[in-house]
């Protein structure tokens, strides 16, 4: 019962004590659990995912359980408990994006890549995931590739995006921060089909 788990791998923070101390120092001593998010991020940035062993390591560091770490990780689509492809494609499926046709977008990507939600292609290049709101409702529908947002993604843009990714590069973004002020037409770098949604 509650025997301590033995580490088979070197702890992630074994040679990063300074970084660890820096992150922990941002929070009060009795609020160590708050450091969980940046620590998870630290691990994932380097290893591309957070393994169960890392979860246990982090749980020990912040004084909580592996279960809670798993709970936090599964809440945010940002964190992965298994390795994802070179390009991690996340399609927002919350209300604004759903109304703007993200379901069809997702089906298109799923057909095009031959994988379903949560899967990675056999060559390890693409992962596809439906996610909850990514906070860019004004420019729905939104597709996030790794850390990059692609906004107002219609069918045409999506094909363009997939083609570019197949070439192994992230295409330049259609900058639409504040898209409402710039105006959709003005921001359009490629031809967008008018029948957004089903076309």
């Amino acid at each position: 019962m509650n025997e301590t788990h033995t580490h088979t791998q070197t702890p992630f923070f074994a040679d990063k004590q300074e970084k660890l101390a820096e992150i922990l120092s941002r929070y009060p001593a009795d609020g160590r659990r708050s450091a969980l998010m940046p620590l998870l991020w630290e691990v994932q940035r380097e290893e591309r995912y957070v393994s169960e062993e890392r979860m246990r390591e982090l749980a020990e560091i912040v004084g909580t359980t592996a279960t809670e770490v798993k709970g936090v990780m599964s809440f945010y689509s940002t964190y992965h408990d298994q390795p994802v492809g070179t390009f991690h494609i996340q399609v927002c499926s919350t209300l604004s994006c759903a109304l703007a046709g993200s379901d069809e977008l997702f089906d298109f990507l799923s057909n095009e890549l031959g994988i379903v939600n949560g899967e990675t292609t056999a060559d390890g290049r693409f992962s596809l995931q439906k996610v909850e709101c990514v906070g860019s409702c004004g420019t729905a529908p939104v597709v996030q590739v790794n850390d990059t947002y692609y906004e107002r993604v219609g069918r045409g843009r999506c094909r363009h995006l997939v083609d570019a990714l197949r070439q192994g590069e992230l295409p330049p973004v259609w900058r639409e921060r504040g898209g409402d002020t710039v105006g959709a037409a003005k921001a359009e770098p490629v031809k967008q089909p008018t029948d957004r949604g089903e076309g």
Partner: protein
Amino acid sequence: MKVRVNDVELDLAPGTSAIDAVFAAGGDVPYFCSQEYMSPIGACRMCLAQVGAPRKERDGSWVMDEATGQPKIFWFPNLMATCTTQVMEGMVIDTLSERVKTAQNGMVEFTLINHPLDCPVCDKGGACELQDRSYEFGDGLSRFQFDKRHNEKHHPLSDLITLDRERCIQCKRCVRYFEEVPGDEVLDFIERTAHTYIGTADPGLPSNFTGNIADICPVGALLDASSRFRGRNWEYDHTRTTSMDDATGAAIIVDARTGRIERIKAALNPDVNKTWIDDGTRFGHEYADSPDRLTTPLIRRQGKLEPATWDEATAFIAERLKGLSGKDVGIAIRSDSTLEEGVAAMALAEELGTGQLDHAPRPAATLIGNQVATITDLATADAILVVGDLTEEAGVLDLRVKDALKGVTPPTLMPHGVPIADLRLKEHMPRQREILTVAAPYRVDLMRHAGATVRYPAGGEAAFFRALGKLAADANALLGEADEAAAGMSTGQARALVARLAAAKRGVIVLGGLALNRRESAEAARALVKAVGAKELAVGPMANSYGLELLGVLPSHERYGYAGMLDGAKALVLSHLDPAQDGEVAERLRGKDLLVVHDIFMTETAHLADVVLPAASVYERDGTVVNLEGRFLPVRAAPVDAGSSTDLTGVARALGEAMGKRLEGRSVRSARRVLKKRFDIDFAELPDHGLLPRAKSRGPVKALAGEVAAGTGNVLVVPSMARAEYLSRNRHLAAAVGGNRLRVNPEDAVKHNLTGGAEVRLKVGGTWRQAVVHVTDGVPRGLMTIPSLPEQPVGLAQADLAGIVVEQVRLEVAS
């Protein structure tokens, strides 16, 4: 603090939650996430109400409503979750307006969106909070026309608890329970939104108190795996009674159907177990429905035991007794017999004129000390020393110790009972671990929660207490090296512990069986209790140990005690005791002129008996027990079909009739007349939560036992939450705990060629024990532990380690 709920004016204590104000006013709001004795979190949004309060001007006067001339009520703009809202002076709570009703209706509809509504096949159906509240506060319509979420229907969280992930409504009670009550955080929400489910990264549920989550689940998501699909709630006979599994006297509800016990649930006793019980109590009942229960008396004729009627059996006994002198008869009852059964045993002994009367097991020292703490004293203590394995010995006390670590006093009861939302309780509360010290010869579960732990050498309780006593007498004293080794602690540690106990205003020392079964250690312990001015809580070996000692079911002289009568008496009447497990004792029993065994199974002793009488199990008796704090608690019989079995009062009646006598304990009622004279309590009217008389009335102690446990040995017999004598018949519990564990240090395992999971037989004392090897560094080298039996009390014993028989090697059961 003046509060108005709808049209009812109330005066409430500051800090009361609004939901309790509503209930105190006789009102009602639905809720799913709040739970008595747990932190309120406002997760389910069912308890919404319209809440308002007056405001003060800068000068401290009320802002007035010109129209009425009364302080103006400023309503909160949104409906408030009443469980997380604290009452304020002049607060007004409205739970009846259309706005509130619409909100409640909407929340019911929302909560039911992803609920499978499989009530017809759900074990909770008929006793389900969601079902009841949906009928009361919903309008039965849903606008959700899409597919419901689908998820796992039978996820085994452990061998004892099954989770249906579709039924879960995410109230978070189970998640909070594990963190707040046993303090073993294990469950959490995984995923988010409609995909959220209850899960864990651990291999199973870790603590000894897992069954309680089945009680508090407001829907049929968490279910007791042992009673799943056994019956519908309205078919059960619910019997509110007291657990006889250990000395705490926890309140339970026994649910029986068609003469079988199907499940046990926790009941409320604010002063004892609150609403929590341990898994041993909850799942340890299956033996009572075992098909090999004795249902009819047996008489030995031509060397064979044959079925007989009660009249034949008692006539046979009466006839054989005539040929004997009464004083040659020994009568012994097990220590979980009720007070009423104790009266029957005493009446029978008096009729026969024998002083050979005893209850067993009985510790070497008295359980009724001078400064007995109550369980509430323990839960509010500011310094606690526990000696022994409290979790296994008296599970409920383990939880009450953890209450003390939180430093929140038990809530004051309200008109509607325990407050639904006690705002002093929070999630992830800091625990004052430093107030708790746990001492034992091996690693015990409670040590994980203690500020300081002591591992003294097995059998070293006396040395441990003497060392503390020495420092209590003289804080500057020094322990010699030998003393330090014997006590398992340095002078510094001992001094710090003594200082903490002495400085405490409400110190409690809990003495387990390990400390009580040797007279020298009990004396040293009581000297320490006196020296530091603490109170003591002595954990008796069984449910009514305290009561039977108080009543005086004791030998007239120590040599007439239980051990003595097995040797010396010519005839024996044994109730629920099985001394013949010890081969040497069995030999001696063969030579008796008359052996009467009153038990529920054909035990080793029953096989030797001249007459076997079928007994009522602990669930089938009416009576009274006295728990370890001296509280008189009612025991009520569940309707279990067990043939013509009866408790000891029934034996006294039948035997008395055969002897032409009307014995005093011939029925529960007749025994209670005797008890009323003795204790001045009306036992028929004993309240559910029991009675704790102020004066500890007790006759003079007639005799004290000699040493119960040996001073030396190579195996430590330890208490066990899952009772060893019945474990093989308690299927689910046995699977969960992995059998009776022979715990062995890894080095000893190699030395004795034992592998984890192996089923072995070994001779402990004179008794062959079956056990499953569990290799752990929790026991020190050179010591093994094995669960105790009523006939093999807690303490050191000598085992034949060279003669261990490995019967079967199997994979170790994970825990």
